[in-house]
């Protein structure tokens, strides 16, 4: 990543999935890495099952705008497939998309899943992650978010050590076991050999 360029990350999902917590972990990891970073989020009715999104931007130089313009994001992390599609136009030509395959169908008119997957696979640089399967294998119902972050971390200039520190800090109040399960999910995501589709 070139110096002083402004990098953008968009995170999306459904209220209650933990989009904002994930964004805060990313923000803290970038800050600990010594980068300038800003996060933008919208609160309010979000926890009531509606669409939620947050943005994080970072640079080697000081930043003042927390908002990324369309076509300027390097990375889109989505906890839900339909919610990913809303933000694809935020990505640069060479941007990456890391998305869970697990739909949250709590709305009228959710498009056929095959159409959703096909649209995602048509995006160059998309990684679809079977978070449901991963959660089962790890015996950790909420592993999805951390696994996606693990996979997305390949595209972020943050060291393994820093990720560990930040995840530990985030979950330590919930006990050692919860912390370990989350680090395990992060590492599982990071290690996933995932076919890059749409290339």
């Amino acid at each position, binding site marked *: 990543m070139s110096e002083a360029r402004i990098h953008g990350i968009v995170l999306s999902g459904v209220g209650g999935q933990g989009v904002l917590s994930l964004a805060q972990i990313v923000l803290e990891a970038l800050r*600990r890495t010594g980068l300038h970073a800003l996060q933008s989020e919208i609160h309010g009715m979000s926890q009531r099952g509606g669409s939620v999104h947050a943005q994080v931007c970072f640079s080697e130089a000081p930043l003042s*705008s927390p*908002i990324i313009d369309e076509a300027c994001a390097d990375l889109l992390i989505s906890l839900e497939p339909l919610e990913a599609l809303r933000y694809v136009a935020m990505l640069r030509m060479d941007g990456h998309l890391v998305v869970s395959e697990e739909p949250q169908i709590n709305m009228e008119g959710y498009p056929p899943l095959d159409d959703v997957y096909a649209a995602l696979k048509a995006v160059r640089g998309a990684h679809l992650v079977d978070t449901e399967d991963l959660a089962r294998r790890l015996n950790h119902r909420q592993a999805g978010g951390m696994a996606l972050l693990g996979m997305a971390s390949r595209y972020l200039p943050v060291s393994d050590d820093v990720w560990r520190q930040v995840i530990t800090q985030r979950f330590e109040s919930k006990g050692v076991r919860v912390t370990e399960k989350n680090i395990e999910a992060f590492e599982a995501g990071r290690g996933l050999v995932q076919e890059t589709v749409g290339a």
Partner: protein
Amino acid sequence: MDQSTLALGVEAVGCAAFDAGIKGAFGYPGTPSTEGFEFVEALIHANPEGRVAQWAANEKVAYDLALGVSYAGHRTLVTMKHVGLNVAMDAYTNSALTGVRGGLVLLVADDPGMHSSQNEQDSRRLAEFAWLPCLEPSTVQECYDYTWRAFELSESLQVPVMVRLVTRLAHCRAALFRREPLAPTGLGVAPKATVQDWVLIPANARRRYVDLLAKQPRMIQDLSPLNRLQPGAGRRGVAVSGMGRAYFDQLAQEHPALAALPRLEVAAYPVDPQLETAFLALVDDVFVFEEDYPVLEERLGLRGTAKVHGRLDGSVPRTGELTPRQLKTALGLTAAEGKDAITLDLPIRAPRFCDGCGHVDAYEAMQEALVNLGVPDARVFGDIGCYTLAAQEPMGAIHAVVEMGASISMAVGAAMAGQTPSVAVIGDSTFGHSGLPALLTAADSGVNVTIMILDNRVVGMTGQQPSQALDQVERMVLGMGIPEAQLQVLTPLPKQHDANVKAMEAALQHPGPSVVVFRRECIQSLRRGVLKEHDRDEKARLEPACCTPEARP
């Protein structure tokens, strides 16, 4: 690593208030202002030293509490969202005449784009209306630094000072550097000689209004270091404020030519007219980027010969939130090319009632009762809170939502105009906020209205803050003059549905005012255990030691 912490813009305001030595913080929850109070509340609870943090019944009460702290000689913060300032407007405008003793800072968070609000009014206009200073930061660190400065200005100018944020800054999270906190030491109560300043009978108010106007030049002068003119080069310039300044600064990093433009940076109002005139003399065209109303744009348009471009001439959309893309478009920069947008039709995923929410059961009982009485199309007046979600289809259960507390008075008005049945739906916290005086009038009017109070025991929508009406709704209703026979308390649960429908039918058929309280704790607060401690204490209080099983022989 540096010594900063991460904080939201509104949190930085709360943090600065604590560090600047406030004695009291007050507010009423409202997005995007809520976390400002919560942040300072947490700091105070961790380290009280005689400080207080108190949610108030509404914004006017919060403001008056703060004014009392100021009167007693201490620094104080009061927080609210933009429409909350309408509620506190009487206190705010009149406190401009009384002036303040201890520094009084008002945090107002505007919501351009109406992410979570019923309008996008611009609080800068209200500060102007009250002849009071308004500081407008554009970064999280400025939120902190300007708030600290606002306390100093408030005490030196002896007026309340507004710190105005917008959603994007209020909910921008970034590194924050704090200063060494001050202890909450006060100035002591105002000297006897100034007592008449606080008594706004006409003779004093006339004198104080003259004083306030006479203070304006000093206000402008003291604020002037926050407003800057950069002469630059060329005859095309920009005037920026708030997030417009943040977005422009960022763009100027990417496009160095922009950094060389003549630029007027505004962060404090009122702006010095001489500064505006000096700026306008440098340019033929000026683009104004500010969040919300065209405040700066109108001022500049009235003052010079330069052509002013912004929301009024369509260079920037007239309504909605300002975006970096709008700046690019107005300045003629080409937008980046990215991935193709998705062609698949993406339906909106609207917020919805939580699974198991008691509001749904209350509405279902109401709707079935209306059907049973042969008025399935009855128009129902709603209010502000999670239960507003019922206005959405397919439920479509409420047909008017205007402002806090409006449901009751509108239902009474409609009943007076002949609407039968006339139903109001209001939450417990909104009832405590603005419903009480409306219910007093409803009881006095004697007209046929049915008022449903959906009591979920917390301020649900903004994050389950404690409701001021907690455990007191029935007493309040009776106290306002509703006869005991016309007050019913129901539990909104599916298994109670049939009984609830019958109770609603009885209330709807009663020819005078009646109140139906549907009480079940918000399932979010239940899950978080928000009221656990309260309920345990309350149970212990109602069940004296002599009667507990352990105490029995």
